């Protein structure tokens, strides 16, 4: 991992420019118009857009869980998705859904350990993933007795446990409290510095400054792609979200 050796104070040297995720003309009838997108390895990318704009659909397509209509193609690294065996996909890409319904009372720990399925259930990194999501104290709790935010942390911990280089998180912060939300963002940042690629969807645009790249979706179309400060202009926010944006000193929350 070249990125890992650079140190966090190093200048923004050109990292590996290899794309971690390449979407070519992917589309889902009625939900996503054809769009193309390339995500560089080692980046933290955010999908933003109003409800129903196609963020989850795009993530599902990128994760290979929802087929794109022809002639759409998905590439992970240099490999076309159809050429990657299902079990290997479990090692290469992690997908954390927006929410989950757990019918059966598996323990938090065993659900997180499912992230190791594609690695032969070797348990590596499970404890670390639990700790990273602040689930140590809940490890033995049945997952069907968790709050919404706790469930979301379990889903993220399971994604972390896969140790996959490409992490796709659908609304990872939606159900989290302020502290866990910030911790999750900080974790995404650490993963990025270690060379992982994180694509997440988010609603809180005030957090967009943490992102390397913002992808704006609107009504199933790709509206804009670029650095947060370049893309999230008051004009675009007005057009896409129908809100007026302004900067004023206000309450700022940071991890203490």
């Amino acid at each position, binding site marked *: 991992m070249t990125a890992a050796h650079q140190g966090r104070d190093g200048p923004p040297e050109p990292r590996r420019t290899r794309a971690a995720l390449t979407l070519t003309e992917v589309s889902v009838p009625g939900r996503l118009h054809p769009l193309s997108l390339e995500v560089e390895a080692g980046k933290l990318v955010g999908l933003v857009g109003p409800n129903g704009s196609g963020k989850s659909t795009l993530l*599902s397509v990128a*994760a*290979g*869980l929802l087929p794109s209509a022809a002639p759409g193609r998905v590439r992970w690294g240099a490999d076309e998705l159809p050429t990657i065996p*299902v*079990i*290997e*996909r*479990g*090692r290469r*890409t*992690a*997908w954390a*859904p927006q929410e*989950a*319904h*757990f*019918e*059966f*009372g*598996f*323990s938090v*720990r*065993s*659900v997180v*350990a*499912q*992230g190791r*399925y*594609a690695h032969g*259930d070797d*348990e590596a990194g499970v404890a670390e993933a639990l700790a990273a999501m602040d689930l140590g104290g809940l*490890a*033995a709790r049945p*997952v069907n007795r968790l709050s919404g935010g706790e469930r979301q942390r379990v*889903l993220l911990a*399971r994604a972390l446990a*896969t140790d996959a280089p490409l992490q796709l998180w659908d609304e990872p912060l939606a159900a989290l409290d302020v502290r866990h939300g910030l911790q999750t963002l900080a974790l995404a940042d650490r993963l990025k510095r270690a060379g992982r690629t994180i694509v997440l969807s988010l609603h809180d645009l005030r957090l967009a400054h943490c992102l390397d790249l913002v992808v704006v979706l609107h009504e199933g179309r790709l509206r804009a792609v670029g650095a947060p400060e370049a893309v999230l202009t008051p004009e675009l926010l007005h057009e896409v979200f129908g809100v007026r944006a302004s900067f004023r000193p206000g309450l700022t929350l940071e991890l203490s």
Partner: protein
Amino acid sequence: MSASGRAAPSGPPKRATAVPPYLLAFALLLLLAAVSLAVGDVRLSPAQLWAGLLRQDEFAATILWHIRLPRLIIAMLVGAALSASGLVMQAYFRNSLASPGLLGVSAGGAAGAVVAIGCGLAAISLLTVPFFAMAGALVATGAVISLARRGASTERLLLAGVALNALLGAVTSYVLSAHTITYERNAQILFWLLGGLEDRTWEHVWMAAAIVPAACLLLPLGRPMDLLSLGATEAQSLGVDVRRLRRWLIGLSTVLTALATAVAGTVGFVGLIVPHILRLLVGPEHRRLVPLSLVAGGAFVVGCDVIGRTVGDLRLGIVTSLIGGPFFLWLLRRGER
């Protein structure tokens, strides 16, 4: 299980049970099997039992090898098949209420068998009725899958099952009403509807023997079933070939239910109650639940059969519901506290 083993210090203390549940279930099954062989119109002492099994005691040997052993083996196979099938259904549909009976698979099996009997096809060969039962179960499964494919929400699933059960019940009723004159055929039909183990022979044992390979094929699927039972898309993202797994599960579950129905008629409740009890006792992990459900399901049906026989010739299907129902309610109440 390494997961629960390593989590032991922080995990609930009940996980650290000294006796492995497999051993307990096996011991229970053996005990019940011995009782099942010993009790009946003629009670056999342990010594007679042993001598009979070794064919040293002619009288006991006749009873055991002609009547009780085939019955016992079928009870074990049927119990194993139904409870494993229920477990699979529950993981497949991510719904602990799913069972072969609720979804109409056993009703389909019964309808197939009843049609075969009603049309007078049963006399052709001993295998005709099981074949038709199997076909009926397959048709019912196909219908359930196509009706409740997407997401399989509780309501859709149960409604599909209700509709199918009604439809197949109508088929059965029609055949019954069309043959009220032929007493013998009606008696055969009633056998299917009530479910029972009376007068089972070695032919029936051989017929049901396919349950063993089907159960063996199910054993390695326990781990991916864990992932599937928490969500199909999630399982797929974690590296499970969900389409392939689902095909195997539904195929095996149908074959198991159909075989059980073919030799014992419709026996309700086993597929629902046994997996539930086991989940309450050992947790939701299918790597343990699959083998345990086979053993414990066998033990449950053998036990029900013993009770039915000692109480006074209650048919198996009646006993499983009569015993299973209240026991299940009690467990549910206990679980709430």
